[in-house]
């Protein structure tokens, strides 16, 4: 089987067949799911998987840091914290303990585009989880004391993740340099000054605006009876009142960058870092898929171009990678490296740009393209093992692509990408005028 498949690869290369006929080694099973829209606007997706008697429940609120206004950054993430502070029938801090006391796990995270609350519980506790989620969606307690106290926890989170880590500010630096207008300019955790300036009214207003059923997708994956689960969703989440106003989506667009930007910053880092970024498109755009392939050719595995050139062959970098950050609105492709002692950031920058230019000039080889597709198939399969992973893929397709069929469909889209597609998107996006080059140097100079 394996040998025959290899032969087909070679053959296809020689006679120039469309790569679409080169199926990857194995096609993962397709998702079966049901999609329901409740009268209050909430969307529910049910995916049955009876292999283990557990169920994962995720609520995706379509609000992230990009929905925040200047001067009020950090709200989406702060709300992720506040949602554990009690609601009409659930005492503060008890959400996680109650889930734990039945043997479940619960947590939440915030991105630029979404705020996600999840729990995995033994399957008989599906009603409990939905009941608690509905409770905090409808009746979150928001008071001055909680607000002020939880703000201190968020400040510690920021110190821990960003301020007290070598390279912890790397992301922040990249985005504040690359964006001028779109809220992707500010970090998800936001500014502590903004959080300090926030009033209780601001917080309540944010809740009333974004924490409404029409802004929520619930995905349930695991061992349940579909009709019963749908009934429970209707019973608990269905009774949350419909919002009186539509969720605002007036997010400012980023104007096209006209000329290359270059920045040198001094930070608390042990070794210099170099970032070469380009403005690209959004997740789900037809160009997004070849950009992912370009990233794989550049840096997935030890045979990838950036690893080979910067780490293996020249020893320029301790670590180096290229990545397409494809999210809901146009974002960045960036190649980055940590510069080894004795090597210069200039040489590292030159090597990174040379690799991006090479894709533009030469494209990728048939073998590299097939390698990337095989690696994509691997990620796809290994990324859908647990009920939580499955639910996440379904939610991502529904909320960020506004098209649930992509949860499966992306597999085939990737397998059909051609060499010409990759070369074309490199030509479109890896231009000097869309480039941002950042050198992050150790404070106090090189040792």
């Amino acid at each position, binding site marked *: 089987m394996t040998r025959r498949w290899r032969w087909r690869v070679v053959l296809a290369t020689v006679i120039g067949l469309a790569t679409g006929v080169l199926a990857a080694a*194995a096609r993962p099973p397709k998702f079966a799911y049901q999609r329901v829209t409740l009268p209050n606007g909430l969307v529910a997706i049910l995916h049955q998987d009876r292999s283990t008697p557990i169920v994962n429940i995720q609520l995706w609120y379509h609000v992230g840091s990009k929905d925040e206004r200047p001067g009020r950054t950090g709200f989406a993430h702060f709300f992720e914290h506040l949602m554990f502070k009690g609601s*009409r029938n659930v005492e503060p801090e008890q959400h996680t303990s109650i889930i734990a006391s*039945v043997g479940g796990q619960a947590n939440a995270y915030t991105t630029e585009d979404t705020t996600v609350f999840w729990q995995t519980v033994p399957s008989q506790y599906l009603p409990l989880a939905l009941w608690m989620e509905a409770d905090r969606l409808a009746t979150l307690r928001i008071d001055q004391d909680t607000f002020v106290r939880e703000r201190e926890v968020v400040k510690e989170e920021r110190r*821990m993740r960003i301020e007290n880590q*070598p390279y912890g500010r790397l992301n922040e630096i990249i985005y504040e340099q690359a964006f001028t207008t779109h809220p992707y300019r500010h970090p998800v955790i936001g500014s502590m000054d903004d959080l300090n300036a926030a009033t209780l009214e601001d917080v309540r207003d944010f809740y009333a605006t974004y924490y409404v059923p029409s802004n929520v997708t619930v995905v349930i994956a695991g061992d349940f009876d579909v009709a019963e689960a749908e009934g429970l969703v209707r019973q608990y989440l269905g009774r949350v009142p419909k919002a009186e106003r539509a969720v605002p989506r007036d997010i400012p667009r980023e104007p096209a960058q006209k000329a290359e930007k270059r920045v040198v910053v001094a930070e608390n880092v042990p070794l210099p870092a170099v970032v070469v970024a380009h403005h690209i498109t959004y997740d789900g755009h037809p160009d997004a898929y070849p950009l992912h392939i370009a990233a794989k050719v550049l840096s997935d595995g030890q*045979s990838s171009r950036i690893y080979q050139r910067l780490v293996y062959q020249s020893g320029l970098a301790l670590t180096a990678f290229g990545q397409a950050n494809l999210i809901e609105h146009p974002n960045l492709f960036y190649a980055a490296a940590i510069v080894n002692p004795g090597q210069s950031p200039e040489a590292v920058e030159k090597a990174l740009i040379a690799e991006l230019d090479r894709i533009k000039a030469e494209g990728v080889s048939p073998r590299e393209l097939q390698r990337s597709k095989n690696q994509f198939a691997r990620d796809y399969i*290994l990324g859908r093992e647990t009920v939580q992973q499955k639910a996440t893929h379904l939610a991502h397709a529904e909320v960020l692509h506004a098209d649930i069929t992509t949860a499966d469909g992306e597999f085939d889209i990737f397998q059909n990408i051609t060499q010409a597609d990759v070369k074309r998107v490199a030509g479109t996006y890896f231009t000097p005028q869309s480039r941002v080059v950042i050198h992050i140097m150790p404070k106090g100079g090189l040792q």
Partner: protein
Amino acid sequence: MRVFSIAALVLTVATTAAVAQTAQQWPREFPPRPLQARAMAFPPFEVKTLANGLTVVVVSQNEQPAISMRMIVRAGSAQDPKGKLGLAMLTAALLDQGAGARSAQQLAEEVDFMGAALGSGAGTDLSFINTVVMKDDYLNGLGIMADVARRPTFVPAEIERQRQQALSALKVAAEDPESVADLVVERLIFGFHPYGMPGSGTADTIRGLTRDDFVAFHRQHFVPNNALLAVVGDITSADALRGIEQHFGDWARGTVPPFTPVDPPQPTRRVIVIDRPDAVQTEIRVGHLGIPRKHADFEAVSQSVKILGGEGGNRLQGVLRSSRQLTYGASADLNTYKWSGAIIAQTNTQTPNTVEALRLIVDEFARLQREKVSDNELEAAQAYAVGSYPLSIETPDQLATQVLNMLFYELPVDNLPKFRERIEGVSPEEIQRIARWFIRPDQLSVVLVGNASAFVDRLKGAGFPLVERVPIGRLDLLSADFLKP
């Protein structure tokens, strides 16, 4: 019983204003009752030993068309010879940098093209090689794994490359406060016992390693009678075993050198402050010696540590985060190794709160030793452990890892499915008996990595009169006073 205790947690009077209108119409009610519980069949697995002593685990499960292979070799950084710290780590890193007839680049190209993944590394007691392939590539993947485990070439150019990478990584880790705190607390607790030594070596020891060292370490430890191999995923057990026989059946037994570490030293109750003047937070570690994994009281000790700072319990999180907002996270871990172990609590807090956070952690150690754990608290912790067990074996890979762990620590694998009896067999009295001898507030070692001058003067008043201060640039894990000369 469970439903009532939940009700008690939720139905108290709401005193604060929720969003007004909704709240008025929203019912006040008890949480819903659970549905009928669904039975969990413990997934099947097979354990076999080949004629050459290689222990093999097979878990057959065909939901996804992938197969994962995990090998464990019973030698890790604890087996680093004196003066050769980092040998196990660097040996493991070199395994896939040239093996059998393939160069490092050929190996990388072949693995990547298959859409496979290959990784190797070393921990404290063991080294590992992990491979994932799509199901059609099983024999190819196993062949590569056999080369990597049995026939690494240790090419001089690759050794130099990995050495440079290891040296750069040490440079970065030396300025990472979490990493520094972890290394120093282990060195304090275990002293100069192998478990106290840095597995990633020091710049001097890494520079001193030679090709002969790697060859010798590999020859001594990477033998079938010192290894375990799990094959997991979309393959029948017969096919899995046939492949293993083909690629590992002729692997020759070897004589593994005996390992007889001295006991860890008596606790010294030191407080080490690693000074990092530009820090905005202090990394805090507090701990003492624990038990080896095979200890008869492992289950009860583990539960008492979870109550102190683990999943399903965690008093530290309750006090430090929920009540006092001093941190984003606090926890305590029971690290159990083959020969010994440690209990280590950790958190981080902004510099001005350092002493208060430390004081609270130490108080929680004392409270656990002094007071009996309440029935409710233990019941909740055990309910979590029992209920969440199926989550921990959801994928075949997770199950195989648990089986490998049991085999590695020479524990009976037949006990795995008896998780409920094992967990619920521990009583509050048992926890208290355990806490009395196990939890030792008087023997705690303390490490603080942060801006020392902002808090050292207050440590004395908080009951820590003897403080040793080490500038981060002068930290030397191999000297008794942690100071480079």
